[in-house]
């Protein structure tokens, strides 16, 4: 019987028989912990294993991205706990200057096609964008992975999601991701791997793949893969990896739990309404909503291409008086690219606040919270109540966030 992409990757990493529903013991190529979860991993490790070394320090990393540099004493202490442990065990740290861990793993060529990678980040499945099996886990799992290099895993079923038609040119990957999320909700892909197919993906840049794969978490899925890619994506990924990009494709006779067809022809800009990511509507239905603040960044929309989309809208325009726009590059590399191609200057002149790389507006504290009654439009992936303060957060693509901050109300670049 043929295998799906996830089944092939898992089979490469286990002696056990791989089929959906079976629990296998799986080897992990890379295991990581963040400044959130990381200190708990250290505490667990020292309590359970003491002076025993980690299984392979060269496959083990810390990535600080949540509260960088630390904005509270607690985070400062926690990060230092990880640093001291890392020095003792010979583990490399991507410290507070680096940016979002999952993105750093891609840029450093650690997350590669066919590999298995885990970390204390529920959006680690973003690595599906480069055909790598990434998975977020809690601190007990990650401690065990540091010690053994292995984990148990229930092989998920796979659903095929076929996107029919081509969205309108005023949309980007985030609009499509939100539209797919609207259609799948948290049920149709729950606990499953997803293979996204359709002509639209032939135009997807790596940043677009990252945007869509990141939101598989909000679909309650395990991981998403996009088998179709074009030469520019291949070249960009190979630039990071330093090796040929050789993703798995599913076998012709692979078995899927379901095939879901979604018609995205002529799709218009989408926005997710508080307080559930899958509560998605057309931006056009929400143009009355006043906006107090915006955020562009996160693992979902923090690449150079994402911020450049916003910069094109902002160029020669100003963020409205009384509105703030916060921009956070995903990584140091992204920051440098924005600097080199002049985008940072455009953003600055428009009145935006630009911070150092990290998780930014999704994490608590890094670039501010919302107060009661405050309305935020964000390129992040979650708008749960209370997550980013006491206000209400809408989720949208970079162009909509930029346009809304210029208008002072929800809108698209066409409304300017």
């Amino acid at each position, binding site marked *: 019987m043929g295998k799906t992409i996830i089944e092939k990757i898992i089979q490469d990493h286990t002696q056990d028989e791989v089929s959906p529903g079976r629990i296998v013991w799986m080897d992990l190529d890379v295991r990581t912990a963040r400044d959130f979860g990381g*200190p708990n991993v250290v505490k667990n490790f020292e309590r359970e294993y003491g002076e025993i070394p980690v299984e392979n320090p060269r496959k083990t990393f810390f990535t600080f991205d949540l509260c960088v540099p630390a904005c509270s004493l607690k985070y400062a202490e926690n990060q230092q706990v990880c640093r001291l442990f890392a020095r003792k065990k010979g583990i490399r740290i991507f410290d507070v200057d680096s940016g979002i861990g999952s993105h750093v793993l891609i840029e450093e060529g650690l997350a590669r096609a066919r590999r298995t990678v885990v970390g204390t980040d529920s959006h680690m499945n973003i690595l599906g964008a480069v055909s790598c099996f990434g998975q977020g886990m809690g601190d007990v799992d990650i401690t065990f992975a540091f010690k053994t290099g292995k984990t148990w895993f229930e092989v998920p079923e796979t659903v095929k999601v076929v996107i029919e038609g081509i969205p309108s040119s005023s949309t980007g990957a985030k609009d499509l991701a939100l539209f797919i999320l609207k259609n799948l909700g948290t049920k149709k892909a729950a*606990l499953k791997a997803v293979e996204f197919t359709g002509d639209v993906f032939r135009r997807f840049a790596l940043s677009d793949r990252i945007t869509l794969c990141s939101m598989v978490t909000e679909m309650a899925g395990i991981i998403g893969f996009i088998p179709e890619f074009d030469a520019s994506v291949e070249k960009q990924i190979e630039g990071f990896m330093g090796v040929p990009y050789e993703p798995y494709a599913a076998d012709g006779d692979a078995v899927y739990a379901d095939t879901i067809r979604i018609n995205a022809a002529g799709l218009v800009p989408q926005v997710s309404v508080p307080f559930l990511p899958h509560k998605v509507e057309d931006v056009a239905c929400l143009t009355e909503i006043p906006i107090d603040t915006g955020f562009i960044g996160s693992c979902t929309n923090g690449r150079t291409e994402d911020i450049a989309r916003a910069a094109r809208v902002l160029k020669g325009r100003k963020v409205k008086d009384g509105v703030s726009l916060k921009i956070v590059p995903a990584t140091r590399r992204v920051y440098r690219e924005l600097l080199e191609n002049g985008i940072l200057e455009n953003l600055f002149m428009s009145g935006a606040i630009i911070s150092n790389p990290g998780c930014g507006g999704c994490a608590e504290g890094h670039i501010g919270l919302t107060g009661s009654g405050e309305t935020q439009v964000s390129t992040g992936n979650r708008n749960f109540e209370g997550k980013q303060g006491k206000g209400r957060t809408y989720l949208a693509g970079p162009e909509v966030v930029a346009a809304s901050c210029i208008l002072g109300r929800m809108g698209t670049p066409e409304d300017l």
Partner: protein
Amino acid sequence: MAEKTIRGKIWMLTGTDGNLIEDIDTDQIYHNAFLHITDISQMGAYALGNLEGWKDFSRKASAGDFVVAGRNFGAGSSRQQAVDCFLALGISLILAPSFGAIYFRNAVNSGFPVIKCPALKDFVASQQLKTGDILYINLKTGEARNEIRDTLFSVEPMSRVQEEIYDAGGLFLYGKSGNRGK
């Protein structure tokens, strides 16, 4: 060996409409403002602290109680604290039609019984389960009994790995017991 059948008083996590709340996420269970806490004993006070209608849960619940929730319980982030906060309160089992993938793993690894019951909604609709009822659940066979209403129903038994880790008292002890963690 850990207990096969456990007994507890249930808390039905219902919303204003009387139905079990679905998609309760980890920020509602354990808010990110308290993620810096690494001592489990301090986490109980924040359990469900961001879930509307249930913010006083930590003061109402007693050790040994069960939590019953709607589908996709524990959606969202990878935080172990969202499991640990219930451990801190002595909650002895969570029953739901389904769980967030990471949440489920975290609970299994802590040796904490998270039990799936796909038909839960039907039992709730037919009023066979109410807050304050006492349930007996056999974790290995999936047989469940409501002592108050004298009714029987079934839940999903634990998978083999879940049972082995539960019997060992958590993933670390499981690993040290000569299984996979050497």
